[in-house]
């Protein structure tokens, strides 16, 4: 138990002392988390929107399949992407394995189904009346879509934040595709795993407090955004 309080105090110490290794690790976490969340949102939101708005054959099966993808273990995503990025794999020539870009690719695959499923369910709840009103006021298809999105922008933001929280707290992909290289691909989660293999539980707790702190700040930023 002692390591919990010890971890709490060393987190405060690390944050205020601006420890270089911790800062670079936190930076990598924010970097890969942010980029992958943006990419996943750019891919996922239009798909979620289309699924909620248009009806076509096989839609239910498609939604079911994407919902199933939510349960994909991160290590499996890591393995699959590893197969592609390894020197022997089809994308091996790009030399992406064990770089932050490799982590981003894996995280986009992880986050996209999350964005699709949650944006789909959110948009579905408000869709019909708002869209019909927009149409009756003479809006084009695109304009109507924009109206719907504006109507639920905070919910969409919440979806994006959920995706961000998920990718920054993920470990399997970061470990497998990043390789946990010090000062390069080491993220907070892989660092926590490493510290726990070293038996440095307090330091692991300290790092996880820093991770939660980052996610807290991301959520606070959305609060500010709402006020604007």
């Amino acid at each position, binding site marked *: 138990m002692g390591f919990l309080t010890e971890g709490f105090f060393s987190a405060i110490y690390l944050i205020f002392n601006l420890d270089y290794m911790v800062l670079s690790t936190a930076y990598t976490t*924010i*970097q890969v988390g*942010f*980029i992958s969340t943006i990419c996943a949102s750019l891919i996922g939101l239009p798909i979620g929107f289309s699924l909620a708005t248009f009806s076509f054959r096989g839609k239910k099966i498609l939604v079911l399949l994407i919902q199933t993808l939510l349960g994909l273990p991160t290590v499996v995503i890591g393995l699959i992407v590893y197969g592609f990025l*390894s*020197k*022997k794999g089809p994308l*091996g*020539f790009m*030399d992406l*394995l*064990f*770089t*932050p*870009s490799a982590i*981003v690719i894996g995280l986009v695959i992880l986050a996209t189904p999350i964005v699709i499923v949650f944006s789909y369910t959110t948009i579905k709840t408000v869709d019909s009346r708002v869209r019909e009103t927009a149409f009756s006021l003479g809006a084009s298809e695109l304009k109507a879509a924009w109206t719907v999105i504006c109507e639920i922008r905070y919910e969409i933001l919440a979806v994006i934040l959920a995706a961000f929280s998920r990718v920054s707290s993920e470990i399997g992909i970061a470990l497998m595709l990043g*390789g*946990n*290289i*010090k000062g*390069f691909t080491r993220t907070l989660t892989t660092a926590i795993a*490493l510290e*726990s*293999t*070293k*038996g*440095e539980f307090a330091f692991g707790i300290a790092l996880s407090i820093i991770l939660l702190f980052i996610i807290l700040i991301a959520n606070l930023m959305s609060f500010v955004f709402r006020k604007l």
Partner: protein
Amino acid sequence: MQAVILFLVLIFFPISGVEAKRLKFATTTSIANSGILSPLLSAYKKKQEITVHAIITGTGKALELGKHGDVDLVLTHAPKLEHLFIKNKYGIDKKEIMFNYFLVAGPPSKKPLLKSEKVVDILKQIAKKKYSWISRGDNSGTHVKEIELWKNAKLNPLGKWYLSSGLGMGRSLIIAEEKNAFILSDRGTYLSFLHRNKINLRIVFGRKDKNLLNVYSVIQVNPIKHKNILYNEARKFSDFLLSNTAQCIIKKFKIKKVPLFYPVSLCTNNQSQGK
């Protein structure tokens, strides 16, 4: 708005400029956990321009990464797996860098109950009394050695007392500590955990028995198998590990005045770096 743009530039800028040349080097958790890696890498950094990226994993997976050509060289400690790796032409130019001895550790309360001159007899006693034993079970160098020892003892460890953790050395030691079990460990990880008060296990058998010899070797990935391998850069790094500078670092690397590794060649120049 400017703040947002600055933030985006800061986030995206470094990812576009991935270094053109970097040496990828897979090594084992026992090396990383002991702490010997940092002084070696920083000494190399002072000398050369190429960045060395160490990927830390078990010996089995390190060799697997080499097999796929995802790393340029490996530093491992499982002679049998290494032999296969070279025999199948995945690796070349094996060089022995350093060595130490494995040890058997166990709970202090049960330690006096076991006494023998030979490590196989210790294992026989543990199996006979059904004392808990933690096996790595992860195809690591230590695990391969453990299997070899049980074979030498002509025993097939099976039963509730024999637990396979599937985890790295450090975590397995912690499990052994929590479960009051015996375990085969490399000296480096054991001492580093003992001196940081993470475990209270005592050495049950710690002699320099040739059955327990633990040799760390560096092997380069065969450039014929994978044409993207940085053969010359890897060669420079492996030569460095055998150089006087690196061998002195290994010799002088100690935890509480106890050396963790023995270099293969004598460290002749005493004024070179080291703590």
